[in-house]
């Protein structure tokens, strides 16, 4: 915990009206769940020294590549960060990637998927419910948004436009993360051009790069 205090010293200064539910939104496979897991793990004091980092990366990197791995909004309650003796508590809500289509046949095509057609249909049903739920949450139950984008992909998509439009219309504070900056095709500037009105923080949720700047931006925007 001393290590955690030192790491986040001066960064988490939440006012009395700090948001309670922070939604992690973004396209599928942008790294939302990896980021959520890292935030939760780091809030418990892990990360920082070499051994912890290796264990974290191994755990973060084991995320499945099967479509719709996150199928329901997953709320991690009471994620507590201690700062200068004060505790800041958030509920972090990991959401499924927003899509306009879900086809159960996508699951059976993946080598990692070991279920049958019935399992695939059930999985797709859960995915549709999760996306529907995520859209409802965005319009009413979220106090802040961390929008996670894969920095190797074009951000100018219909869905990104729509989600950011809802965030603006709901007047919800948001931070944009340009994730996967460790990858060769990463283009952070393209994301900054797409979201000029937001803090765009380049990060690697997998390798823990630039997490400090992310936490600083979160405290400034959600505090």
């Amino acid at each position, binding site marked *: 915990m001393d290590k955690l205090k030192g790491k986040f010293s001066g960064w988490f200064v939440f006012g009395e009206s700090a948001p309670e539910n922070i939604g992690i939104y973004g396209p599928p496979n942008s790294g939302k769940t990896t980021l959520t897991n890292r935030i939760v793990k780091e809030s418990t004091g892990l990360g920082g020294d070499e051994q912890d980092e290796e264990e974290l990366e191994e755990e973060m990197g084991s995320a499945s590549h099967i479509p719709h791995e996150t199928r329901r909004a997953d709320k991690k309650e009471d994620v507590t960060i201690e700062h200068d003796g004060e505790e800041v508590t958030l509920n972090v809500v990991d959401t499924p990637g*927003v*899509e*306009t*289509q*879900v*086809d*159960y046949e996508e699951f059976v095509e993946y080598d990692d998927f070991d279920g049958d057609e019935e399992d695939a*249909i059930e999985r*797709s049903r859960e995915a*549709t*419910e999760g*996306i*529907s739920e995520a*859209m*409802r949450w*965005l*319009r009413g139950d979220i106090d802040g948004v961390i929008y996670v984008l894969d920095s190797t992909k074009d*951000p*100018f998509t*219909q869905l*990104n*436009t*729509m*989600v*950011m*439009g*809802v965030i*603006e*219309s709901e007047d919800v504070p948001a931070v944009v993360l340009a994730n996967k900056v460790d990858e060769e095709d990463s283009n952070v500037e393209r994301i900054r*051009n*797409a*979201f*000029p*009105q937001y803090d765009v923080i380049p990060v690697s949720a997998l390798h823990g790069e630039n997490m400090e700047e992310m936490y600083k931006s979160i405290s400034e925007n959600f505090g």
Partner: protein
Amino acid sequence: MSEGNNKNNVQLEFVRSRRLEKMATAEKIRMILDSVKEEKIVILEDRMNPDEESKLIEATMKEINPDNFSGIEIESYKDEQKSSGLFDRFMSNDDPQMTIIGPSNQLNEVNQDEDIMTAMISNEEEQG
């Protein structure tokens, strides 16, 4: 009224903005989904606002059926010259907007450059 696509035809529905302006959100979404589920391609002479689009996605998710409907493909024409950033593109209403919506298994590869939007529409045979 046409039943939608047969073996040789793809039906397009152009909906004028003056009609869209008179429709409530729920009515608009119902119209779109009913047409798309009949394997029609819907072209709106406007763009839905973010709230409407999010509700369209929510409604689409509830109607996805592994037997005959796996969702929609939706793309709006964007004026790239006059707007910068994603939010500006959404809010810019100075120029005509257009939105194409179709079944995800038929409307593929919607691309657009400065002045032209192209879409590939696959013509699948009706299931007997």
